[in-house]
């Protein structure tokens, strides 16, 4: 289903809010289920997403394992002598972390379904100042630029006969320290050029601007937004009455 960026923004805000506020595994599982539903609605290919995020997923799993081994409390599930290896509280903490991160990742995937500058247009329609909406879009645009800047400098070092893979961790860290300053300076120069290009193209010429793309909320968007809001309200009331709300 092709949703308006405003509907997607609402889904992102509600899902991440619920993920942060939910405290126990049961509630987080419901939120994760809702996030998967939202992902299906936004036509996210879960297989492609898993491939794209495999390093991030490995990191989440690693942190979850560390948490389950280090957090103590509750029933002891595995122990060696007097040393507790795995406790029910540790497992609960790890599960909460995995579920919370899954919801946040799903929100990110929903955001990534935007074509072109749809999200910027959506934010503008929600009356966000243009400068702020554009800044957030341009920041995302500049992440790969910064990455390339850093990668190019690493290549330049490799071309001078230094095999970075063979360096010790301490030497590698020192080397990265030397790289950061020129990489930042290069990125700053690029941002200066970008600022000039923006000025040359009439950025902030007027307080308002026209938009080539016309955003219109369809009945599907209304159904999704109302359902999401009702779900969130019911969920929060239920958590509040059960005393399971993390904040408040």
């Amino acid at each position, binding site marked *: 289903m092709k949703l308006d960026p405003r509907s997607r923004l609402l889904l992102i805000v509600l899902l991440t809010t619920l993920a942060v506020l939910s405290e126990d595994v049961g509630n987080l599982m419901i939120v994760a289920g809702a996030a998967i539903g939202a992902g299906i609605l936004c036509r996210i290919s879960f297989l492609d997403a898993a491939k794209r995020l495999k390093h991030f997923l490995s990191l989440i799993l690693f942190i979850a394992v560390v948490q389950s081994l280090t957090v103590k409390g509750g029933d002891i599930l595995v122990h060696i002598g007097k040393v507790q290896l795995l406790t029910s509280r540790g497992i609960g903490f790890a599960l909460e972390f995995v579920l919370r991160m899954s919801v946040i990742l799903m929100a990110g995937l929903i955001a990534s379904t935007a*074509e*072109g*500058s749809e999200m910027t247009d959506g934010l503008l329609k929600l009356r966000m100042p243009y400068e702020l909406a554009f800044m957030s879009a*341009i920041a995302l*645009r500049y992440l*790969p*630029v910064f990455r390339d800047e850093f990668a190019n400098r690493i290549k330049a070092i490799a071309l001078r006969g230094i095999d970075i893979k063979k360096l010790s961790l301490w030497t590698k860290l020192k080397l990265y320290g030397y790289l950061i300053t020129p990489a930042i300076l290069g990125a700053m120069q*690029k941002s200066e*050029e*970008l600022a*000039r*290009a*923006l*000025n*040359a*193209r*009439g*950025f*902030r*010429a*007027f307080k*308002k*601007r*026209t*938009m*080539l793309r*016309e955003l219109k909320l369809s009945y599907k968007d209304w159904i999704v937004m109302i359902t999401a809001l009702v779900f969130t309200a019911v969920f929060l009331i239920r958590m509040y009455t059960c005393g399971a709300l993390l904040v408040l």
Partner: protein
Amino acid sequence: MQASDRGGCGVKLRVKQISLSYGDTAIFQNLSLSLCEGEILGIKGDNGSGKSSLCLCLSGLIGEEDGVRLCGEILYDGKPLQKMSIAERCTAVGIVFQNPDSQLFSPTVTEELAFGPENLCIPRQEIAARIEEALRLCGIEHLKNAKTHLLSGGEKQLVAIASVLTMHPKILIADEITARVDIEKKERIRNILKSFASNGGAVVLVSHNSRDLAVATKTLELERGKDYADRT
């Protein structure tokens, strides 16, 4: 050089005795020139001679906040550049830089081309028409829905030119825009510039390439720190 006024020509740009310096270092002094409708001014000079700085001066994109001192007067259709609003300046002069990567900031070509007119509050239908026109002029109709980060260097430069053309500037400043493109696209860019000038515009073309400069109707050679006061 020098670019002298021609009687009867519609003077689009007049530069009166401008001097530019970075701190105590003078880049050029007392430079005067004028540019009429249909003319292409070719600017050449060694590295550091102030070609790009002159382009930035002419487009109003450099000032005291950049650590420079600029004296003199730049007039577009008789109106001082310093007194122009952003919208007036953008419709008077458009600039394309050497590196297309730092000029493209929208995810798709259509959005890139729409960015300028959207800022100028041009109505939606007219923006669409301008995009079609610019794509046709630059011969990149097939790239209309392409993603900008997937384009080749030459294609990016053509998109950068098209994105300036959608703002309908009267003068186009091209700062070494053929430096990073292949021979076929260099030729295409030269044709775009000639076509722009012959359709009532005027072009300031900075280049080291003699073939590029061959399309110029007059040329100016810049030398670092030179005083042009005695030139007419």
